[in-house]
């Protein structure tokens, strides 16, 4: 028992710091994902030919390549072209753009599932396309996409771990530091695993609560991501 107390004392503070960064990363990446993903979905469904191509290219590239590779391109590759980002910026941008591509597909699915009848009805009462999107399509799409989006939100906690490879001081990085500091990888990583499980559980509860509050009977979109 004493050993356990000593262990917790040693690693506790660092791990808590790391957790806070992880939470930060998760929330910012999710938000960025919405900011990029929703317009991308709209562009794909309602945009003109060039806008649509651009949206598709973005979505396919970010869904068709590994997150890790994207991270390296942004953090190590772009400076080559003169664009330099700090670790944090690179992490936020990569996670955000990556998530945005997946979120775009969930939103697109939802928008298309709502059916053109809604748009036609909205135009028929004289709404512009923009108004129709804003007041008729989007409110429904957001609710339809909620289950898939919730999964993405919960999974995001896990995706953030990747940033340890560019030394962003999140929970995973702390794990690496601590295990090399104390030459004891397994207990450290197991502790970190437990903390991730707890984090994921907390996020799950929060997200499911939001889901329940916003529930509307209708189509369920099922897409599995990790």
């Amino acid at each position, binding site marked *: 028992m004493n050993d356990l107390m000593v262990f917790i004392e040693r690693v506790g503070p660092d791990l808590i710091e790391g957790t806070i960064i992880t939470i930060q990363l998760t929330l910012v990446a999710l938000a960025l994902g919405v900011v990029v993903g929703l317009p991308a979905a709209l562009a794909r469904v309602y945009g003109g030919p060039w806008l649509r191509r651009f949206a598709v290219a973005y979505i396919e590239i970010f869904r068709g390549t590994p997150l890790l590779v994207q991270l*390296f391109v942004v953090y190590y590759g772009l400076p080559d072209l003169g664009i330099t980002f700090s670790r944090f910026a690179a992490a936020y941008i990569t996670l955000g753009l990556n998530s945005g591509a997946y979120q775009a597909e969930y939103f697109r699915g939802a928008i298309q599932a709502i059916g053109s009848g809604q748009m036609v009805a909205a135009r028929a009462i004289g709404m512009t396309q923009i108004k129709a999107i804003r007041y008729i399509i989007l409110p429904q799409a957001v609710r339809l996409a909620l289950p898939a989006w919730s999964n993405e939100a919960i999974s995001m906690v896990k995706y953030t771990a990747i940033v340890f490879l560019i030394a962003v001081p999140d929970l995973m990085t702390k794990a690496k530091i601590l295990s090399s500091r104390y030459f004891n990888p397994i207990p450290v990583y197991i502790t970190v695993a437990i903390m991730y499980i707890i984090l994921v559980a907390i996020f799950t509860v929060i997200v499911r609560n939001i889901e329940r509050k916003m529930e509307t009977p209708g189509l369920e979109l099922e897409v599995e991501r990790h």
Partner: protein
Amino acid sequence: MDQLQNFGLLVYYLSQGVGVTLGVTAIALSTGFVFGTILALLRVYGGPLLGGFAAAYSMVIRGVPVIVVLFILFFVIAQFINLSPFLAGAFALGIASSAYQSEIFRGAIISVPPGQMMAARAIGMSRLKAILYVILPQALRLAIPSWSNEAAIVLKDSSLVYVLGVPEILRRAQYVSARTHEPFIAFAAAALLYFVLTFLTNRSLDVVERRYRLQM
């Protein structure tokens, strides 16, 4: 012209990592498939004890980042057996994937209509035979779309064995970048290769899906 030649060499060097990437993916997917099916069967047909264990296993592994699972399993395996990073990494990814695949198969098994089990028992099949010859064949085919999704994910996650030093595509790109000091080209080329691989995998699995789709 020189640039183009260099780029060609770069792609050539990187594409030697394709075999490694595909190897890791194949091993991980098949490991995940075997364990995933067993776990799914345990959850649906095992009693409360076995089913509970399988459920807990699935929940725990899915609650942890794949990279953490990779590390833990790698360290644990390294303590007991002397496996190459390639095998250890691939196997660890397989264990991680097994949790997700078990969810996929579980969902598929329970969506086979209950009448199928009844009819199988009615002609005198034991539960085991009914599962093997009637339920599983249908469940696996129902699972194809979700499984294809998982396959694409594992292909991308295979890049994580980078951290174990395995010479897959990304690791090679990193070597090139360290030598040529032209990181953007190197990593962009890596991204391109992964993109092509993912694209081809998706297309092939689409063909499989169309051929084996189960009509109810």
